[in-house]
């Protein structure tokens, strides 16, 4: 089971794979998530089997992340894969260390992800919203402030993540 070569794919390469898929396939798979409720009913490959599968279907989309310390992020989930060749096929490994057997190249889209089991993730074009509540000493009224900042590229450590959600879609 020797590996002929290990190639480290840059961030850009997975997007090339993504764009080479027939548009109908991408859209069909996204439909499984957009329609919500029982995506298990649609095609097998987009079945949500584990909670992490839900994030897998969010790739290449903007997501909303709620963090500890009253912080929120909205950003684009980045994907990274390591691909190596073996016997003319490909093994795909995400940076969390999970290995998948070689398959059709089109399956790469749904096998690669930007997070690992800790929910460390990499986001691009991120808007961070920090919410603080100040209490006026005299009037005892709560002043809710939100601070925003934008970060082009951000690594999020998983232990700070509370909730991840795709953005609400306007029907």
């Amino acid at each position, binding site marked *: 089971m020797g590996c002929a070569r290990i190639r480290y794919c840059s961030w850009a390469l997975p997007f090339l794979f993504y764009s080479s898929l027939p548009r109908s396939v991408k859209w069909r798979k996204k439909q499984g998530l957009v329609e*919500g409720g029982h995506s298990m009913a649609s095609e097998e490959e987009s079945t949500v089997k584990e909670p992490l*599968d839900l994030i897998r279907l969010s790739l290449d989309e903007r997501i909303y992340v709620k963090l500890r310390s009253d912080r929120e992020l909205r950003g684009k989930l980045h994907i990274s894969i390591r691909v190596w060749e073996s016997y003319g096929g490909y093994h795909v490994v995400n940076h969390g260390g999970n290995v998948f057997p070689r398959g059709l190249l089109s399956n790469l889209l749904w096998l690669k992800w930007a997070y690992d089991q800790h929910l460390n993730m990499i986001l691009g074009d991120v808007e961070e919203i920090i919410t603080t509540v100040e209490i006026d000493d005299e009037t005892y009224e709560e002043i809710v402030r939100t601070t925003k900042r934008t970060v082009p590229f951000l690594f999020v450590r998983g232990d700070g993540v509370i909730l991840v959600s795709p953005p609400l879609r306007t029907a």
Partner: protein
Amino acid sequence: MSTGGGEKGSGGGGSVKTPADFLKSIRGRPVVVKLNSGVDYRGILACLDGYMNIAMEQTEEYVNGQLKNKYGDAFIRGNNVLYISTSKRTLAEGA
């Protein structure tokens, strides 16, 4: 050998023997998830795993009993979860 009975909901299920069985039995049901921070999430449980990572649909976020946010789909990291409970909530909005 069976551990805490606190996780076993009385949601009308059959014989629930272990917490693992409970987790398997509540998929697809409306649940209440309370986090360590006190925030409440109500929604339909899509799935969960042994770390108590949760995927939910039609999720509503309640802070201090007040509805704050709604998420179409939500993934909650398991270490924040205090408990998962079934609820007999009636779906106010069509699923």
